């Protein structure tokens, strides 16, 4: 049984499927996320696939600030992801609300709504930083309990 568990853990690290949710960002971070998928960075070599469906995803990549309108969507998406899952907040806005944090409609960073595992700073973060953040998140899988 132990070997099976080990294998599962290893597979989790080897095959993170990510769901990218734009929580009201300026699209700067989003473009960088897409850049990761291009042949130059090719995150598929880590087994990462950009899926469009929380039910298939292991990793929720959130860009942008959270506001009162879209917080529900964020919660819903996070809820519809089966355990174990990792949440990565991207960019200044995702971390804290960034330059918009004072706005009347903005709640702030992602962690005000759902627990975040990895923070990737930058405005926008470089693709290398995003990949680094995701890979750091993968190590957290081994600490999460089995679903």
């Amino acid at each position, binding site marked *: 049984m132990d070997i099976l568990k080990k294998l599962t853990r290893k597979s989790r690290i080897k095959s993170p499927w990510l769901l990218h*949710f734009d929580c009201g960002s300026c699209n700067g971070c989003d473009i960088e996320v897409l850049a990761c998928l291009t042949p130059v960075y090719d995150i598929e070599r880590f087994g990462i696939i950009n899926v469009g*469906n*929380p*039910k298939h995803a292991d990793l929720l990549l959130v860009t942008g600030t959270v506001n009162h309108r879209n917080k*529900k*969507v*964020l919660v*819903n*998406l996070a*809820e*519809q992801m*089966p355990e174990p899952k990792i949440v990565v907040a991207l960019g200044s806005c995702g971390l804290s609300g960034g330059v918009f944090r004072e706005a009347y409609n903005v709640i702030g960073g992602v962690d005000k709504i759902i627990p975040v595992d990895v923070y990737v700073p930058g405005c926008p973060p470089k693709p290398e930083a995003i990949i680094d953040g995701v890979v750091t998140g993968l190590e957290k899988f081994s600490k999460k309990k089995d679903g």
Partner: protein
Amino acid sequence: MLNTILFVLILGPFIAGALCFIIRSGHVRSFIVLAMGCLIATASIILFIKGPFSHTPPPLLGIPTHFLVLWGDDLLLFVMLYFAFKHGHLFTKILIIFQIVCLDYFELFMVDHTENFPLFFADNLSLIMVLIISIVGSLICVFAIPYMNKHEEHQGLKKSRQPKFFAFLVVIIGAMNGLVLSNNIIFMYMFFEITTLGSFMLISHDQNETAINNAVRALWMNCVAGAAFIIAMIWAYVIQGTVDAQKLIQAGHMGGIMLTPLALLCFAAMVKAAQIPFQSWLLGAMVAPTPTSALLHSSTMVKAGVYIALRFAPGYAGTFLSQSLAVSGAFAFLATSAMAIRESNGKKVLAYSTIGNLGLIFACAGINTPEAITAGILLIIFHAFSKALLFLCVGDIEQHIGSRDIEVMRGLYARMPRTTLIAVLGIVTMMLPPFGVLLSKWMAIEAASKHLFVILPLAVGSAMMVVYWARWAGILLSAPHGLKVEPEKQGLLTRFPLLVLVWGAVVLSLCAPLVYSKLVVPILSAPSFSIRAGIFENPTGTFLFYPVMLILALGFIYAVYAAKKARKARLSGPYLCGAQTTDPESFEGPMKKPVAVLSGAIYFESIFGNQKLTVWVNIFGGMLLALLVGGSL
């Protein structure tokens, strides 16, 4: 003994019908129908156990039987003529008068009534038909008892029309039994006509404009069949001087001179079985209460058509007629599948699928090899059960939800889990292995493989068939998640027929090798398959019936177990881009208002959806029929 059984099977329903008509009490009528159902079902089983026979019963009440038939025929035709006049349909009048004149001249001046031959003849084909008619037919009658009460409640009639309805419902069963058992083709013709009149009365039952129009259409189309039948009968008598069906079949096509009567018989059979371009009468029959459609579609009436085609199949083996019958049957299969795929009306889907399956049986009769005949007979058996079941389910559903539209049945599992599961099982028995209908389709495809113009429509048609069945089954199950499903209430008389039919469909499929070796093999000139350990095998192919069934059943049981185990799994709403409200079936729209999630199936309107398709299909079907009759002149 035999006399009594024949009396019960053929005249019993007539007597029950008369009683239903005379005694106007609902309870007594229910009792009569139930008693008759039990009686003829038992009688059919006894008859089946006794095995094939040929027999002439003693004259009834001392009157020679042929007089009874003549009077019966005349009475019948004059009743039909009365309706033709009542509804002022010229073509029907002409057809009926033609039939009266021909029949009387034929019976009074041509036929030698002293000719000695058995009036009744039954081989396994007839016995199978009797079993199906008596058992499935009786179950439908039983289902009709509560159904018709509710039906009339909906209509709010002052005076119940049920006596007449039940009278004709049971009479059709008797007539069908008579048709499949008689060896004298004049008898056959009489019973053939009784089913015509019966279907006319049943279709017109609701007495509204559509019902009457459709009934009149059914009448004239079936009168065309009757006229073709009578010409065929006289023609055959002129050539051979006998009305003994067995002699006619054994004589074969006699170097071609017997082909025309045989072609006319096939033509009559195809009209009766609502083949293209005569499909509209069977579709029109959908306006009638559901038991009518169930009875006409599954066990009786249309099966009279395929029975005649299969019965006379040895007579036209290896002729052009046989080939054109195969092609027009296959064409009907293709065309009706294409029409069914665009329908969202559940009953129409069933109707088209019936016509398609009958087309397949005609194609089998036309291919005329032992394999094909096997496929045809098996298809008759399995189709009767599954189709009756589906019709009754749709009837029951319609009474609950007030619609027969497939889109309205979306998520029916949440409201009527029992009926839905039975209906889905019915659908599965219609299209998937290892159930009987698919087994027969496998045989049909393997038998048709040498006939290019048959195999192409079969290949395309069966794919379409899969689409409309799967779509329907899925839609029935598409229930909102996490809902507590409460089994609905079903009356005993509703549930009993449904359960018997669904078990019948499943168990009969389980016993398919037995059904084949015990029932079908004795009819065939040479056994088409060898059966070893439930494996159908012949030089063309192998159907690992029991092995496949065993493994699929194991998988099925494990799947049920896994689904049960998934009770512990976390429930989550369907994916709606994260925008769902607290009710997972709606998402948050503008102004924070919930918007219900809607989705519909694709009905291919852009490809199969226009009326022109029907026109072209009818023209082409008509041409094929013309080829069938004309080619044998």
